[in-house]
Structures are given as C-alpha cells and as structure tokens.
C-alpha cells in the first residue's frame, strides 16, 4: 500500500525541517522562554512566601498591640484604683484632722465658757451678796428700831454663824 511506505524525499526533508526548526527554537526561543517562565514562577513563589510572612507579621503585630492595649488598660485600672484609695485616705485624714481641730476649738470654747460662767457666777454671787447685804442692812435697819428685836436677831445670827464655823 502506497500509504504505508515512507517516501524517501519526505523523510529527507522532514529530517532537515526538524533540524532547522530545532536549531532555531533551541537557539532563540526555548532558553528565553523557559528561563523567564522559571524565574517568574520563582518570583511568584517568593511573592506568596513574602505575603505569607507579612500576614504572619501583621497577625503578630496585632497580637502584640492587643497585649499592649490590655497592659495599658490594666495599668489604667490600677492607677484609678490607687487614686481612689489615695483620695479616700486624704479625705479620711482631712476628716480626722478637722475633727481634732474642731475638738480643740470646742474644748477651748468650752473652757472659755466655763471660765466665763465661773466669772459670771462669781459676779452674780458678789452682786447677790451685795443685794443681800443691802437688803439685810435695810431689813436690819428696820428691825434695829426695836432693841429687843436687835438683840434677838444678833443672837439668831450668831447662832446661825456658829455652826457654820
């Protein structure tokens, strides 16, 4: 069969054509194409790796930022608590100081009052005794009109004074 017998001319040209095509592509096409394709694949791999590490770093940064925020919050709470305590303490101290001061003021006031009371009492007593003496002298004057009565009175008074001594 004609179809199954290879033709010499075509074999010859096929060898030649293939050799030429191979030479052309080997020299000008494949090195450039394969090198670029390989390098681009490497570049893409590197890019993916870079993106991965960047993502990891971002996650880490986010985590550390979160921990910093948490720390800050804690510190803030501590400070607030401390401030609250200090405030209470100051108020307490102030209160005790004020109380002490008030006490002092009150004490001195009391003492003054007592003093004045005593003085007033004393004055009052003196006055009363004056009044009493006045009255007594008037009464005595009246009563001394009569000698009998004078003597009785003197006696009476002497009696009264006597047990006092």
């Amino acid at each position, binding site marked *: 069969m*004609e*179809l*199954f*017998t*290879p*033709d*010499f*001319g*075509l*074999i*010859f*040209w*096929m*060898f030649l*054509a*293939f050799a*030429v*095509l*191979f030479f*052309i*592509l*080997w020299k*000008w*096409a*494949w*090195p*450039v*194409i*394969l*090198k*670029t*394709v390989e*390098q*681009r694949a490497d*570049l893409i791999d590197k890019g993916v790796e870079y993106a991965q590490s960047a993502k990891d770093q971002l996650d880490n940064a986010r985590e550390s930022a979160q921990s910093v925020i948490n720390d800050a919050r804690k510190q803030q709470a501590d400070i607030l608590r401390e401030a609250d305590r200090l405030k209470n303490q100051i108020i307490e101290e102030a209160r005790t100081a004020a109380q002490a001061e008030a006490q002092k003021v009150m004490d001195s006031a009391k003492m003054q009052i007592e003093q004045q009371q005593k003085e007033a009492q004393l004055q009052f007593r003196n006055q009363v005794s004056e009044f009493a003496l006045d009255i007594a002298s008037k009464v005595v004057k009246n009563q001394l009109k009569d000698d009998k009565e004078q003597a009785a009175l003197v006696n009476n008074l002497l009696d009264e004074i006597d047990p006092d001594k």
Partner: protein
Amino acid sequence: MTRYLKIFILSLIALLPVSVRASHADDSHEGDHGGKIDPKEIIFEHLGDGYGWEVPFNHHKRIPLPIIVWGSDGLHIFSSARVTDGQTYRDGNAEFRIAPKGSEYKGKLVEIVDGKEIRPWDISITKNVCALFIAVIFVAALLIHLARHHKANGFKAPRKTTGAIEALVTFIYDGVIKSTLGDKAPKFAPYLLTVFFFILGMNLLGLIVVFPGGANLTGNIAVTLVLAVLTFLVTNIWGTKDYWKEIFWPDVPLWLKFPLPIMPVIEIFGMFTKPAALTVRLFANMMGGHMIVLVLTLLIFIFAAINPVAGGATTVVSVLFSIFMLLIDVLVSFIQAYVFTMLSTIFISLAQHHEHHEEHKTDEHQPAPAVSK
C-alpha cells in the same frame, strides 16, 4: 459585527472541504470514470502526497512546485508544471514523467531509461514538503514571537495569543517534562517541546483545507517515522549505563539470560517497538480523522448517484457530520501531539534510569540549564 463576520468565515472554512471535494467528485463523475465515481481513488489521492498543490474549486489547476531529482546522470531541477497530465519532460539526456495508473510507482515521478520506469532519488518539494516548510515557519514564528515578548517585557505575563502559546509551553513543560524527568528536565525540554509544537502545528495546519494547510502531513508515515526515530535516537544516545545493563543483563533469574539470551532479546525488541508504536499511533490517528471527513463527503456523491433525493438528504447529514468530525479532529490534533510528547518523555526518562544504590550519584550528572543535544 466582527463576531458575526468571524462566525461566517469560520463556517465558510468548515464548508470548504465539502465544496472542494464536491467539485473534485464532479470532475471524476463526468471525466475519467465515465459517470462512476471511485471513492477509493479520491480518498487515497487526498490522503497522499502530490507534485502540485490543489487550487480550491478547480481540480485541474494546481500550483506547480519544484521537482528535485537525482537521476541516472545527476541532478535535475524543474517545475512540476512540465510533467502534469502525463506529459514527459526531457531535461538534458534524461526523460521524466509521473508514473501512470497501473504502474508500480503510480503517482510518483519516474525516469524513463530504455523504455523502463526507474525511480530516481527524489527530493522534490512536494505538497507535503511545502506544507512542512510552512509548518516550520508557522511554529518558529509563534515561539519566537513569545520569546521576544519575554525579552521585551520581562516577567510581565503575555496576553491573548502569546498567552495561549505560553500556557501550552508551561502545560507541557511543567505537566509532562518536569514531572517525569525531574532535574533532567532542562536537558531534554528543548527537544520535547519542539516535538510537541511541531506536531501540533502540522496537525492543525492539516485541518485547514485551503492553501496554507490541507496537506495530510502527520497522517503521512514518513513524517511520524522521522519523529519516532528522533525520539529513539535521543532515548538511546543519552541512555545511562544502567539502562543498557537493564537491556543486556536484566535483573532476572540466570537461566532467562545466560545460555539463551531470552530476556535481552525481548528487551532489544522492546527498544524498537516503542518508536514503532509512536509512528503508527500518530499516523493512524491523523490519517483516520482525515479519512472520515473524506468518506462523509463522498457519501453524498455515492448516494446522489443512486438517487438524487437520497443524495440531497445525505448532504445535510454529511455536512453536519463533517463539521463535527473536523471539530473532533481539532481536539485529536492536540491530544495526539500531547500523547506523542508524553510517551517520548516517558521513553527518555526510562533510559535515564539509575539503580537505587546509585541514586545519590545522580546529582553529579546535573545538566547545565537549557543546554541540550
């Protein structure tokens, strides 16, 4: 608008085989066979080679191509127009003509010496050879275009056609060559990629029915034979010591190889069946595809000869089936180029075999990148 234009042109192209063969069949119908068509004749003429290239819609006119022969008295170069229609051409002392029907060399150029037909060494630029050159230019242009894109644009990914070619390159290089050959891939990649693109180019050009294509190249056993022989040479020239040891002294019981070398004979036989399988697979697949389209088209004329109505009905069915088959052939073109490349890669990788205890030594043979052959 351009989309409809494209569809129109594509459908026109798809219909062309029908019209071309229709006019052809008409010629045979009215001409040499006296009202009878000879399907076998037509099919084999179209599957085979020729000294001229058919012009669409006209079976008699052909684009003449140069004939180059080494006859009994040296080199002769002349146009194929001089030997058409059975003419005899005298060039110096030698007489040439295309052998007529019934001759041993039917359809081939013969030299007439003493009234006898002798086949000279014939390296004419036939239709197939011309198509071969077109395929070489086509494939080289596409790939150099891609290489230039890379040179000019660096790592910028190509788009459209260039991108499609690059996708094919990476598909074969990463998917077939690298995954099979591993660190040896850069050494054999140029050969294997060239084989893939050459076969794919020839297959696809063969499907175009008018001028730049139309030659049944990969459906020609000479073409597939050369490709298979090249794979055979690459496999065996770069075969490792272990590969040859596996052939002549395989790891089998002694009685299988010593007094009678049963296994070595089988292994050596196996060396040659591989390229034979490559040859026949590609050839048969591509020829089969072309033949089915031809037969479907010829069915119209066979039925029309019996009954005009039946012929009319067959036309619709045949045209639809032809289009379907041509589309399938586009797929087959790719698959066969892929299969040929894949099997070549596997054969080469089998010859790169190293025994397990020597595996650590393979690093020493690491090839320089992208240098081969």
